[in-house]
């Protein structure tokens, strides 16, 4: 597997489905920080869920005007049902076809299982990766690394 893209690398652009009839591209968000949160799958256990945690702290991310995008290989209908069930207030992108292509471009694909790694990226307003982190797949990395990275952007 190629290594996780590291700080200083321009973030590869992509356009992925965000709803059944809409795509979102990274370049549309140029001008403010973007947090990419690759994760293995929708529907992991409730209270320890990484996406649920980020949903709770969106306001902390928004203080930095940052946009959060969740990405997994689940399809859009799955994402839609998951987001509704968990009351998520940020977009989930479907890296579904060709499967895992964006995850692979970021070095965040776990080939053996055919899923995205639990990888985090903070991209600055100019589209450059400023921080990246890959957590063991079973460990929810929390949010402190993201918040530290967002603060560092402003220094």
């Amino acid at each position: 597997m190629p290594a996780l893209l590291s700080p200083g690398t321009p973030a590869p652009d992509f356009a992925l489905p965000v709803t059944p009839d809409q795509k979102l591209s990274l370049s549309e968000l140029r001008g403010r920080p973007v947090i990419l949160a690759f994760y293995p799958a929708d529907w992991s256990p409730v209270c320890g869920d990484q996406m649920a945690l980020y949903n709770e702290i969106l306001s902390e991310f928004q203080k930095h005007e940052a946009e959060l995008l969740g990405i997994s290989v689940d399809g859009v209908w799955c994402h839609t049902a998951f987001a509704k069930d968990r009351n998520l207030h940020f977009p989930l992108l479907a890296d579904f076809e060709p499967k895992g292509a964006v995850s692979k471009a970021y070095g965040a694909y776990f080939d053996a299982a055919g899923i995205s790694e639990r990888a985090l990226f903070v991209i600055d307003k100019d589209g450059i990766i400023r921080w990246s982190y890959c957590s063991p797949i079973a460990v929810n990395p929390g949010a402190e690394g993201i918040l530290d990275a967002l603060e560092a952007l402003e220094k």
Partner: protein
Amino acid sequence: MSTLKIPISSLDHVQGNAKAACTLVEYGDYECPHCGAAYPLVKQLQKHFGKRLRFIYRNFPMTQLHPNAQAAAEAAEFAESKGKFWEMHDLLFENQDRLGSDLFAELASNLGLDPGELYRALAKKTFTDRVRTDFTGGVRSGVNGTPTFFIDGQRYDRPMDFDTMVKAIEESIAS
């Protein structure tokens, strides 16, 4: 490994001896079933370690998953203002399946507190910031779900069962 960033202070809810050999911090949510399961576990640990263990509870309500979690946390903070935090904390977990304003009023009455005053505190959001402060401090410390425990400031990532936690606390005391 994540470490506790917010030191224990006079603002905390503390049970046990300030000079205890080990400090256990829980970030919890009164509506989270895993926290409900951890509630008797903490009691067992406290009994097992006695004066060697100090326990601190901090709020981490997952409000988008649990509609009553924030109000429950604020009800406990209201009880704190009347010197009854731990009584309310225990009752909330013991009645987790009935959380809601009727239960909060009932528990306040049981503790000799004025339910009307509790309702007013909830409506005026008197304790909202207090709960949020715990929450944001937890985020900065690497709390990644509920419950999250810290043993002497180190996040506990191992299984939440009595034997494993006893071992982790003993290791921390020995180190």
